[in-house]
């Protein structure tokens, strides 16, 4: 997986969050081969604000998705705080690159408006969040 992607975070419906999905423009690149191959996926323009570090093996991505204490601003103008483990099968996109169209996300997420405190619009720990990482 390499190049430009769109990350979507879909909170577990049981969390009763005010949004169904948040999206972020990302860039992906291979990252290391030992002890297992990896892929690093970073937020466009503010790479350390939202960082995905995946182990990439057997057509599966698995790893941590994290933000700093300031969260990351989504395309929908909502701020997301995220500390979660994502797992997803890699399938082939139309342009031949790999992408994840159905991924599971386990862990913590919190939402707010752009200038809000963390979790002002809700906080949720769940094993059943979801994510997608589609080629763009």
């Amino acid at each position, binding site marked *: 997986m390499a190049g430009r992607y769109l990350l979507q975070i879909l909170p577990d419906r049981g969390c*009763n969050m005010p949004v169904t999905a948040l999206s972020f423009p990302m860039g992906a690149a291979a990252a290391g081969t030992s002890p297992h191959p990896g892929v690093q996926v970073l937020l466009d323009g503010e790479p350390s604000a939202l960082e995905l570090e995946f182990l990439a093996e057997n057509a599966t991505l698995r790893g941590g998705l994290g933000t700093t204490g300031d969260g990351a601003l989504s395309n929908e103008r909502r701020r997301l705080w995220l500390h979660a483990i994502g797992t997803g099968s890699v399938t082939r996109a139309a342009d031949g690159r790999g992408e994840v169209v159905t991924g599971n996300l386990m862990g913590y997420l919190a939402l707010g408006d752009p*200038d809000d405190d963390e979790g002002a619009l809700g906080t949720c720990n769940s094993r059943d969040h979801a994510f997608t990482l589609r080629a763009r």
Partner: protein
Amino acid sequence: MTTSPSTARRLWSPLGVALLLAILGSGTKAGADRGALHLRASEAFAPCLRPALDAFTRESGWTVVLDVGEPDPPREADVVVGDDSEMTRLLEAGVADLQTSVDLGSLPWVWVVVPPGSPPGSLSALAPDRVVVLGGRAGRGARESLQGLAADRLRVSRDGGELRRARYALLPRSLAGTGEHRRSDVRPLIATAALVAGAPHAAAARRLLAFLQGDRGRGLLSTCLDAIETGASKGGSAQASYARSVVDWWLPDCSLTHDGYNDPGQVLGAPDAVFLGVKDSYRGIMSLGQGGYVTVDLVDTAVDGPGPDIRVYQVTGTEPVTLYAASSPQGPFVLVGLRMDCGTRTPGLENYEHHCDFDLRGTGISEARYVKVEDGEIYPCLAGGTITEGADIDAIEILNKKP
């Protein structure tokens, strides 16, 4: 790290200004900010510290300026006081001196209900008003406990006045206003104090820390803070059994590059982590980076017995850990605990040696020989700034061993 607009807005809360003025007005060197000792404490602990700081001022002649806000960054402070969740990165980065860190006590969370006598249970659902909860890192656990509550029923605040006036609130006891208080099961905050590295008044700051740890200081703090509950002494017995070999591990390339403790072999055997007294300098740990993991063979088998079955020892702070277990090295690995705070103090070990316990009950498996320990902090590697990013694992112990 950058400072968000909301962070900047929080720097001087009304409560903070009031306490600062109160402290300035009560010291024997009142108004003499030059030469004053600066202590920065988070909102929850500031009211608890005030009587002890006043006493220290009277007895030492040192004016203490109490600056209220998240201790990270410490700004001009000589001493910082915060919850584990606020102190971890400060201590690991060496911004605050781990060797001087001391636990002052714990602070429980309470439900505030006005009027008193309202129906117990499901307060968040029953309350006619918004439920007010503390913001910031220290309030994260409380906010998690309110998950599922609609956003328009929730109010997150760090304004001491607003918190005290709330009719329905989930707050640290020190910030609770009038009304009925009911104990909550949210993890209590742990007040940890430490000297800021390079503090301009280091000698006086050490004197203040000694005062807070002494009988006089502890007595004054005890009106607000409770004794810290340490973990059961179940672990570490003569028959204890620890992880014996590494089956698999992974750290992201970024973490391998930036972290200094990447050897998975360091999680084997009994707890042996040592802080070497210099920033970021340890022996005997593996830092798991951003979402990294280590899978170990316990050789002995953990079984579902009385109480928790497996203990993970983790150094400094309360960085969360996720644990999976299996009966074969190939798995399937079953989730035992997701992002469990790993900050329980361990009796008989150094102050920085913490642990978290896991129970096989309810996981669908009754025994396990292989466990996978995964970082649950999941903080962006590129923003890290320490060489100990992620949970720092010292050892893995079987608490209930198959005979």
